[in-house]
């Protein structure tokens, strides 16, 4: 192929946001279409699916193909883009009759709880009818086409991405409204008879023709940007403009007039009016109750997860990996980006662990390598003692967690392979010693700071180890899920499945799944954050929202997320070094220690106490300060988790390729000549902001729901939650600031090269 032609064809501008949106729409439509096809096979044919898919493809072609890339250089390419958005994509999408499939494709809670009230709203229905009324929609499309082709506005679109997007949105949505009555989208009722769509289409063609003629026959270049643009292949700007006019004229007219002819022929068909049956009522919208989706019942993955030795295999793999990291940490080069201990735990493992929490649940604890050696040792010498009653809380773990977060920053643990290796070794030794003496999973439940991180954040995970059908457990007398049996041990963390609520303290070990003789325990889909609002006691935990130790743990994790991420931003680093120089200390440790004492302990304690006190003043009588503070503190977990997610995903995405040469070096024992540098794609800050947005919204929603327990009426609930909402918004604002700051890319060769 000619290299220039090949270069043109390869000039795609694939925007991840657009791709995600189109894929999500395709998945939603397909899901809904599959359901509706069972109920209404004549209505939802393969043709509808093909039409909708083609419509999405047309949008992709318009916004991501070379048509978009060359739109700024050639008016004809820009015109093709507009035709795709006005005359191709909307009718194809609407021919797919998308309303019901998209609604039925949504998760049940979104469709029923979030959208339900809007779908039933009279005013919105009336607004929708007005927007797709033939007169209104014709006016809207004509106005959009004429106004956006005025030179001043067209130039605005050419010079600004935002205005260009607005222009495309106007074209697309006006066209959707225009084509809606022409196609007759179900279940809306047509305002005019079908034959009346013929003048509707012809009138639109007149506008299109008038504008095309102006472009075709103008003796000067209307849009100055094209005059300035380099002329490709010697095509003059005026010729380009005439060609664009011709494209708008001929294919544009075909797009309007062919449907008009088809409608005319149908109207003239004898007896057609009588054969049109009334549309079935919206029976399809009824949602039947279903059992929640169960990961263990998925075809391949479910079988793998249910395999008796699955966990042992994963733990063994992680144990080998941990051993490799520790060996390299002790004996490898003490340069973090060149060492497994400087790259895998801090860049990859943390990122993958939080993504697993977001997408599934506490998969880290499921694969935890630290408990494997003690499990093997227990076969020979079982522990005798129970964990002391006075220590059965999260206070030790919370203290260790705060200490770890401080040490990470104060001693730059991420920059020291040897320290990383010592931490790993220390973890194995501690887990082994604690669990050699004490029964159950005492280390996991009361000591392990990493475990607590996962227990708390798994409260916002979408999957939960849970009883499938509670009625089955009603007749159970053996309680194998917690007591175990001769084949399988029960839950070491004392979580009795029928009374377990949420993921807290659950290591996803699946012992209960293996132990239940009724096979009544699954990994079920749940609403993320639902357990944050629970006020019922949970087995092995009690009432989560009445435990100060859990609240303290949550508070450390929430504020730790922001402190930890802020520590790698340029302004905070500069500030620390300014104070370091001003106070004349030998190291930054005292300043970091003071910062962490204030940011991780004092400020959170003051803010939470004060918020609890304010809420107490406005709450109904009987609500205690302790209950309010503990309950509302837990609702801050989503915004804190969002910050961890934004922070760790930043490291993972920017530094994922750094593992390859380090692994190569570990096995070949030869230093590679070059190392990939950290690279941050343009979409990453957007993704981080989406995480923060969702975290804030989930926190506010949880606080709103919780507030109703302490208030009589909505106004009172709003005042009770307001200090916590303010705190969440302040954390969110801090997160925004952090995400938009220049970041230090720890654990990458670039960073290290500059250090020395």
């Amino acid at each position: 192929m000619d290299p220039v032609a090949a270069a043109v064809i390869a000039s795609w501008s694939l925007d991840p946001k657009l791709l995600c949106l189109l894929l999500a729409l395709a998945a939603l439509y397909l899901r809904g279409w599959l359901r509706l096809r069972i109920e209404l096979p004549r209505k939802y044919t393969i043709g509808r699916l093909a039409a909708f898919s083609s419509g999405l493809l047309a949008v992709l072609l318009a916004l991501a193909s070379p048509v978009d890339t060359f739109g700024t250089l050639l008016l004809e390419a820009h015109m093709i883009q507009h035709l795709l958005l006005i005359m191709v994509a909307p009718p194809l999408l609407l021919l797919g009759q998308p309303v019901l499939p998209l609604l039925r494709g949504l998760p049940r809670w979104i469709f029923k709880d979030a959208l339900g009230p809007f779908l039933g709203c009279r005013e919105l229905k009336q607004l929708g009818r007005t927007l797709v009324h033939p007169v209104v929609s014709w006016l809207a499309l004509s106005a959009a086409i004429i106004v956006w082709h005025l030179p001043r506005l067209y130039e605005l679109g050419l010079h600004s991405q935002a205005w260009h997007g607005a222009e495309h949105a106007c074209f697309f949505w006006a066209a959707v409204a225009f084509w809606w009555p022409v196609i007759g989208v179900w279940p809306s009722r047509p305002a005019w008879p079908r034959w009346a769509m013929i003048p509707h289409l012809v009138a639109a063609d007149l506008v299109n023709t008038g504008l095309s003629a102006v472009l075709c026959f103008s003796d000067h270049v209307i849009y100055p940007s094209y005059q300035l643009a380099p002329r490709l292949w010697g095509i003059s700007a005026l010729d380009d403009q005439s060609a664009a006019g011709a494209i708008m004229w001929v294919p544009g007219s075909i797009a309007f007039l062919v449907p008009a002819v088809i409608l005319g022929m149908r109207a003239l068909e004898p007896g057609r009016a009588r054969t049109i049956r009334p549309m079935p009522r919206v029976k399809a919208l009824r949602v039947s109750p279903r059992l929640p989706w169960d990961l263990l019942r998925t075809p391949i993955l479910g079988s793998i997860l249910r395999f008796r030795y699955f966990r042992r295999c994963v733990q063994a793999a992680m144990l080998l990996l941990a051993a490799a990291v520790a060996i390299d940490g002790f004996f490898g080069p003490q340069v973090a980006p060149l060492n497994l201990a400087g790259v895998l735990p801090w860049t990859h493992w943390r990122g993958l662990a939080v993504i697993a929490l977001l997408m599934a649940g506490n998969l880290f604890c499921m694969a935890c390598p630290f408990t494997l050696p003690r499990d093997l040792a227990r076969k020979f010498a079982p522990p005798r003692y129970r964990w002391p009653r006075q220590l059965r809380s999260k206070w030790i773990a919370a203290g260790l967690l705060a200490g770890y977060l401080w040490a990470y920053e104060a001693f730059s643990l991420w920059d020291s392979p040897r320290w990383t290796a010592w931490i790993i070794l220390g973890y194995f030794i501690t887990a082994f010693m604690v669990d050699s003496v004490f029964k159950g999973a005492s280390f996991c439940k009361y000591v392990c700071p990493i475990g607590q991180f996962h227990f708390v954040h798994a409260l916002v995970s979408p999957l939960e180890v849970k009883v499938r059908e509670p009625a089955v457990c009603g007749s159970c007398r053996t309680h194998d899920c917690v007591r175990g049996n001769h084949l399988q041990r029960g839950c070491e963390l004392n979580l009795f499945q029928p009374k377990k609520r949420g993921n807290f303290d659950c290591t996803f070990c699946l012992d209960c799944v293996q132990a239940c003789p009724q096979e009544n325990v699954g990994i079920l889909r749940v609403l993320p954050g639902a357990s944050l609002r629970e006020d019922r006691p949970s087995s092995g935990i009690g009432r989560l929202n009445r435990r100060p130790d859990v609240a303290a743990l949550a508070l450390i994790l929430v504020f730790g997320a922001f402190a930890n991420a802020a520590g790698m931003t340029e302004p905070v680093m500069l500030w620390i070094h300014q104070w370091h120089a001003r106070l004349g200390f030998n190291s930054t440790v005292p300043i970091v220690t003071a910062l962490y004492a204030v940011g991780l302990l004092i400020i959170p304690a003051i803010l939470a106490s004060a918020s609890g006190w304010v809420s107490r003043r406005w709450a109904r009588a009987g609500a205690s300060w302790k209950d309010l503070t503990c309950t509302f503190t837990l609702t801050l977990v989503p915004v804190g988790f969002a910050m961890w997610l934004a922070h760790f995903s930043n490291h993972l995405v920017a530094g994922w390729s750094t593992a390859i040469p380090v692994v190569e070096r570990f096995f070949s024992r030869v230093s590679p000549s070059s190392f990939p540098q950290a690279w941050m794609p343009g979409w990453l800050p957007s993704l981080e902001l989406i995480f923060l947005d969702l975290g804030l919204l989930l926190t506010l929603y949880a606080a709103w729901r919780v507030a109703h327990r302490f208030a009589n009426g909505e106004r009172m609930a709003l005042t009770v939650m307001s200090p916590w909402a303010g705190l969440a918004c302040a954390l969110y604002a801090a997160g925004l600031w952090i995400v938009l700051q220049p970041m230090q890319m720890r654990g990458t060769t670039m960073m290290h090269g500059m250090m020395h």
Partner: protein
Amino acid sequence: MTNPKLLLPVTVILAQASALADGGAVQLRKEAGPFVITVFTAPAPLSAGPVDISLLLQNRNGLEPVLDASVSLILRSEASGAEIQARPTREWAQNKLLYAAPVTLAEPGKWQLDVTILRNGERTEATGTIDVARAFEMASSYWSYIAFPPLIIVLFVIRERLIRRKAKR
């Protein structure tokens, strides 16, 4: 905590962070040697911070795009004398007829642009000047993400009212 030398790579990372679309506003158009050179910059208007500079090389005769040249750029701030070197490539460009490179313009003002093209052993040079405005607030480019939570909150409030109204009926 590490030393402040790390701030330089921080800036470089930020420069790489913004994979801007190539093309954008035409900054320079010159005929030099056998080529017509057009330099584009994005974003428009050009402001200090991470930017994308791209070039279209065309044969003088027939204006056919030239795809097999080696291009290098030097940008020099007239105010501070700061210098940036870049090697635009077609791989980096979205429009594969262009040669593009991401650079970070650290300060506003006039920057001198030197373009060097090597093709078939022949060297062609062109120079020009570009005006760089003050850096815009990074937050302004993410306004839609920041506006998202308030929008959802408003929708939630409407939803609650609709539910209440339905319950009253």
